[in-house]
């Protein structure tokens, strides 16, 4: 039960695991940025992959910030608590994801149009001349593994917590490992003398990332302007929320039911009827019992004396 802005008991364990996972995510991302920086040549995919990994830090950071505030509960200055910090974090993460896709498409398309032939030179290592491409391949392989694993672990947690920020970060991790895979193909292609392989692989991947980012932006915007609660990671209405509307409609005939989302929580408004004194929010929840915490508030707006409400 969510009381006065603190975290519901059912969320404590997944939240703890998600926070730990995001710290791991940040540590691995920084290590990948460092490794990529070391072998960064002229290759377009390497450069953009590096920018992306840097942008990839944004979702885990805003997630940790949002969780920090969510735990605080309301204060005198913020009487409604900090649930919506989460919505704001979601918007920032969505912009970062869309930005990754956009920068990837821009860089690869302009390299293709300019017919850039990327130079990947050699370095001297332990007395031997080694083509930098081999080191780039090794770095790319390293950059694929952590986001692949972390992203897979994030998905179920994001579902359990109804956490769009975590979901967007899982998409960001997907974007990162896919870019890494495209980078592998690109560098091998480059080694075979196909100067366009690098950019073409990157352009191909960018389309999927842009569509993920665009969808996340639409959901985040819907949440911030009090749209109907959305199903996780989609622009469709949440089926559980729709069930809740039906249930409230049946209970309060003639009333207008409005639902909105504040972060992971749903707030319901029943307009045009007199307030009901006794309420059991948990009993009201029509969906899975373990997700009862989602309904955080039921508010009544009594009918206006003139007959129509303000």
């Amino acid at each position, binding site marked *: 039960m969510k009381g006065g802005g603190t975290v519901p008991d059912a969320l404590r364990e997944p939240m703890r695991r998600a926070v730990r996972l995001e710290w791991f995510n940040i540590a691995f991302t920084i290590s990948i940025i460092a490794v990529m920086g070391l072998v960064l040549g*002229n290759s377009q995919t390497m450069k953009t992959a590096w920018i992306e990994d840097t942008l990839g830090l944004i979702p885990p950071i805003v997630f940790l910030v949002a969780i920090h505030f969510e735990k605080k509960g309301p204060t005198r200055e913020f009487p409604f608590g900090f649930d919506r910090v989460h919505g704001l974090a979601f918007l920032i993460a969505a912009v970062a994801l869309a930005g990754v896709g956009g920068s990837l498409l821009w860089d690869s398309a302009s390299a293709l149009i300019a017919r*850039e032939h990327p*130079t990947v030179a050699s370095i001297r290592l332990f007395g031997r001349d080694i*083509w930098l491409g081999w080191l780039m391949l090794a770095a790319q392989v390293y950059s694929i593994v952590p986001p692949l694993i972390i992203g897979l672990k994030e998905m179920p947690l994001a579902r359990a917590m109804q956490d769009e920020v975590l979901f967007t970060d899982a998409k960001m991790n997907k974007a990162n490992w896919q870019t890494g895979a495209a980078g592998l193909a690109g560098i091998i292609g480059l080694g*075979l003398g196909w100067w366009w392989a690098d950019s073409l692989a990157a352009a191909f991947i960018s389309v999927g990332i842009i569509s993920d980012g665009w969808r996340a932006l639409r959901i985040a915007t819907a949440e911030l302007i009090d749209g109907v609660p959305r199903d996780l990671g989609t622009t469709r209405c949440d089926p559980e929320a729709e069930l809740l509307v039906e249930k409230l409609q049946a209970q309060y005939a003639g009333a207008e039911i409005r639902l909105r989302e504040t972060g992971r929580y749903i707030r319901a408004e029943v307009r045009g009827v007199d307030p009901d004194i006794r309420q059991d929010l948990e009993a009201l929840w029509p969906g899975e019992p373990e997700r009862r915490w989602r309904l955080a508030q039921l508010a009544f707006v009594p009918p206006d004396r003139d007959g129509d409400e303000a």
Partner: protein
Amino acid sequence: MKWRIALCAALALAACDRLPTDPDGTLDRIRSERSFRVGLIATGNAPIGAQRQRLFLARVARATAARPIVETGASEPLLLDLEDGRLDLVIGPLSSESPWVERVALLEPLGTAPGPHKAVVTPIARNGENRWITLLEREARAVAGEAR
């Protein structure tokens, strides 16, 4: 089954040796034509640079079994020829702040020319001809190492 694995491994090893390849086949062409075209950027006087240039060209000639066809000129026309593939190699001082840095590939420097500007004498190649570039860099490192 075993012979397939062996075949794959052999192919992979062969590929290792083939990587990197030149998109425009510079090194293959040099080997078959037995010559490569070099542009030397004319500078006032750079005695140490000149000696290292000769040493470097001799090493590249031995490594490719081809002879250098050398012309001397101002940097702009030489670099334009290099970019368009009419030259295979340009040697000379080029500032790392020059706008050419993006358009051609600056390789390992042969050494620092004497004088107040400390201009670095660098082999410069066409962007993306990575096998040729790898060979040039190997020889440039050897020259810089010998001179030390």
